[in-house]
């Protein structure tokens, strides 16, 4: 897994590539925490190239959601393929997260 971070307007776009699993999610977690520590409270996550995600990836995102919420920021996810939507649905978290179709709609009104 690799994460490229791109600053746009008042948010950071995290473009994640590869599998987010028990092996890689600690790295995702520390990159997200580093952004929040740098006062980056609006996070957009681009899932276009996320090929797999397990519950440790979901846990990382729940933590990111709590961190951004606490700081009155936003966490928005977009371009999830079906298998990844299914993980959120099975976890009953599809309503807890703000999930968008694409970057444009995720950026809207942030």
């Amino acid at each position: 897994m690799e994460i490229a971070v791109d600053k746009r307007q008042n948010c950071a776009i995290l473009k994640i590539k590869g599998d987010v699993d028990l092996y890689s999610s600690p790295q995702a977690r520390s990159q997200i925490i580093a952004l929040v520590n740098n006062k980056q409270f609006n996070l957009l996550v681009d899932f276009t190239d996320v090929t797999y995600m397990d519950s440790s990836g979901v846990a990382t995102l729940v933590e990111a959601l709590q961190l951004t919420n606490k700081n009155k920021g936003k966490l928005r996810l977009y371009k999830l393929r079906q298998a990844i939507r299914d993980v959120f649905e099975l976890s009953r978290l599809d309503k807890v997260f703000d999930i968008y179709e694409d970057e444009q709609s995720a950026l809207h009104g942030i």
Partner: protein
Amino acid sequence: MPQAIEIKIPSEPKFLKIVRATISHVCETMGFSQEDANNITLAVDEACSNIIKHSYCGASDQLIEVLISIHHDRIEVLLKDFGKKVNVKQIKSRELDDVRPGGLGVHLIKSVMDIVNYENHSEAGNELQLVKYIRKKG
């Protein structure tokens, strides 16, 4: 006799991808739908993660055995570890409404698989049997 595939890996997170690639390919050759194949792969992966985290307390040099049996109507996956014996009653995810990081693996495994059977009467470690039936289309 069912066809059998066996994989042994060290309890090291970076090798879980091997288990996923294997399960996903086997499911594909068996005629599972893409959705079921993805879900079964997720369930087996979550079960292996739990072995690493809970049975082996994060140690990466222990053994995980994955035994896959291909039946005409179902896939059976038997996961063996040789770590700390589990109290089967404690194997339970958090309440889903109590949103917090973690505590979802067992819920995912149980939502996805038709049979989820923890056993540890054997000498050392634990066995987890996971079964999923092929859904007939239409």
